[in-house]
């Protein structure tokens, strides 16, 4: 019995991790700046490529993953400085600008790198409970997702940066008047967002085929999670991921991946009819 229960939990954890890891970065950028980064998938791709490249050079996998996340973060801050910064007052244009960027990056990668990158296998190791065998790496991914949420909680709730960031989020003009350097806060937040995207790519790199268009496999999940979650990462994205993971898990188990994805989309469209502001609006209102 406990083996079946664990199996259900394992499947849930797998989908939950995927949703959290792919959406966290997007949600932070949206929550702080109201900008949806359409190049999110490309930062994920960047993380994956850097990881694989470093591992092929002989760097141990965990270190390569951390370096990949950092690389994506730094590139993100550069992109913020060059492009995104101009569009904080025009969120729709930021959508277009980052989408243009995404097109440029994906297609240039196809032109220059092509699809000829040697992948790395999923780290081996499995454990058995009852009659079932489970891959250890999938559980590692789940714990990474939980760690990301915990890390965000600490950064945004327990540090001085977090206080200023939340003040900026609530009222940027007032925060600026009180001496917060909002420009720098935005830049760092965008960096954190893209670093998380890079981390997502780095963590999933061993499990996937590396192609320049791989970002597209993440964007639907990250979009719907953010749409349902709303502006608050901790109170929105996390519950949204729990909720969507349950739907997805049930459908995946009986009908397969694609029906799971379609079902998730239908659930999202039904939910926005009822809760246009996302889950976080309900939770935040309750909290007050």
């Amino acid at each position, binding site marked *: 019995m406990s083996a079946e229960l664990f199996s259900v939990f394992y499947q849930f954890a797998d989908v939950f991790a995927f949703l959290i890891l792919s959406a966290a970065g997007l949600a932070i950028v949206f929550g702080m700046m109201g900008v949806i980064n359409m190049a999110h998938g490309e930062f994920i791709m960047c993380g994956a490529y850097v990881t694989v490249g470093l591992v092929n050079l002989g760097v141990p996998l965990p270190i390569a993953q951390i370096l990949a996340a950092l690389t994506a973060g730094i590139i993100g801050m550069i992109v913020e400085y060059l*492009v995104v910064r101009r569009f904080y007052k025009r969120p729709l244009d930021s959508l277009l600008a980052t989408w243009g960027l995404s097109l440029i990056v994906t297609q240039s990668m196809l032109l220059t790198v092509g699809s000829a990158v040697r992948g790395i296998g999923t780290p081996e190791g499995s454990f058995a409970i009852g009659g079932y065998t489970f891959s250890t790496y999938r559980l590692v991914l789940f714990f990474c997702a939980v760690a990301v949420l915990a890390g965000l909680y600490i950064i945004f709730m327990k540090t001085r940066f977090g206080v200023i960031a939340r003040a900026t989020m609530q009222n940027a003009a007032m925060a600026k008047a009180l001496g917060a350097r909002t420009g720098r806060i935005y830049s760092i937040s965008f960096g954190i967002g893209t670093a998380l995207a890079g981390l997502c790519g780095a963590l999933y790199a061993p499990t996937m085929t590396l192609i320049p268009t791989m970002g597209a496999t993440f964007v639907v999940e990250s979009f719907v999670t953010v749409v349902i979650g709303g502006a608050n990462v901790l109170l929105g994205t996390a519950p949204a991921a729990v909720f969507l993971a349950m739907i997805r898990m049930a459908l995946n188990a009986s009908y397969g991946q694609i029906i799971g994805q*379609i079902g998730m989309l239908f659930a999202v469209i039904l939910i926005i009819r009822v809760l246009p502001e996302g889950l976080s609006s309900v939770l935040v209102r309750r909290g007050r």
Partner: protein
Amino acid sequence: MLKLLDGPQTLGRGRIFWSCFLAVLAGALIYPLFADSYDVGNFAYFLIWIFMALGLCLMWGYGGMLSFGQTFFFGIAGYGYGVLAINMGGGTTTIAALVLSVVVAMIAAGILGYFMIWGGISGIFFGIVTLSATLVLAFFLGQTAGPEWHIGPARLNGFNGMKGMDPLTVGSFDIEGSALYYLMIALIVIVYIALRMLVNSSVGNVIVATRENPQRAEMLGYDVRKYQLLTFVIGSGLAGLSGALYTSWGQFITPSSIGLPAAAMPIVWVAFSGRNDLTATLVGSFLLLFGFQTITVYSQQAALVLMGVLLLATVMLAPQGFVLGIGKLVVDWWGRRRRRDEAPALADTSRLQSDET
């Protein structure tokens, strides 16, 4: 009715603009007499996509709803045409298949639009929900390779796409080559004129008022949601028309004309052209399609990189669109020169339209 052709919502009015319009139309009509049939077929291919661009222009430029789902409805109608044409058995019924597939796309738009608009989704989220739906449809169609995925005798065929449907046919006459070209020209003129009349009518004024300020429009007593839904259904239906015509033109359709990067293309055309004006969208989209096709022959990736660069450049340098911006510049320059040369009384007629050139 004809008074609605010119109005505050569309650039270009008066005798000079319409003379230019007629001149371009006449040029388009006699073009097949001079060009070889391959070029005529290519031109017909560019014109297929214009409907989709005009639909997006209506939704985004006039209605303020940035839909990333044009290829979603393109795909629904494209596959719909294939399924219907195969099931109903070709011949003149292909015309019915064309109409029905566009209706199906409009019904889909009505359902999706109802949930989004009545749910109060707008701005950024409107874009990413429609894009999510688009990508999911593309993924779904991509994995329908097995023989179990069929509707009647029509196989969906996964990534390889659906094929084997008849082109548009009347009796035993296939509408192909220059016949298709003339059909496209006729449809574009009808759609363009109809959209001009729509946006300059009282309904169009409400649509624009909703874009400017939904609350205020609502306070004035309009149920803005109905107007938004109407806009969304028309705009998406035009994308459906493109899709059905596309399938009939090439007698095949694949999921790659739905997913990324295809979904970004209508956005690039309309943003680059100038979303606030139908004429600018018409001209700009045609130019971009022409350019894109020319480069694609050498490298599709390079052409797509260029599209990305154009999109980025447009939002950074000319958020209102390049074609519209250049058009306005020329009009201003012309107007100033006219005013300097002639009596100021002529200023009114000098607001001529240069986008047509």
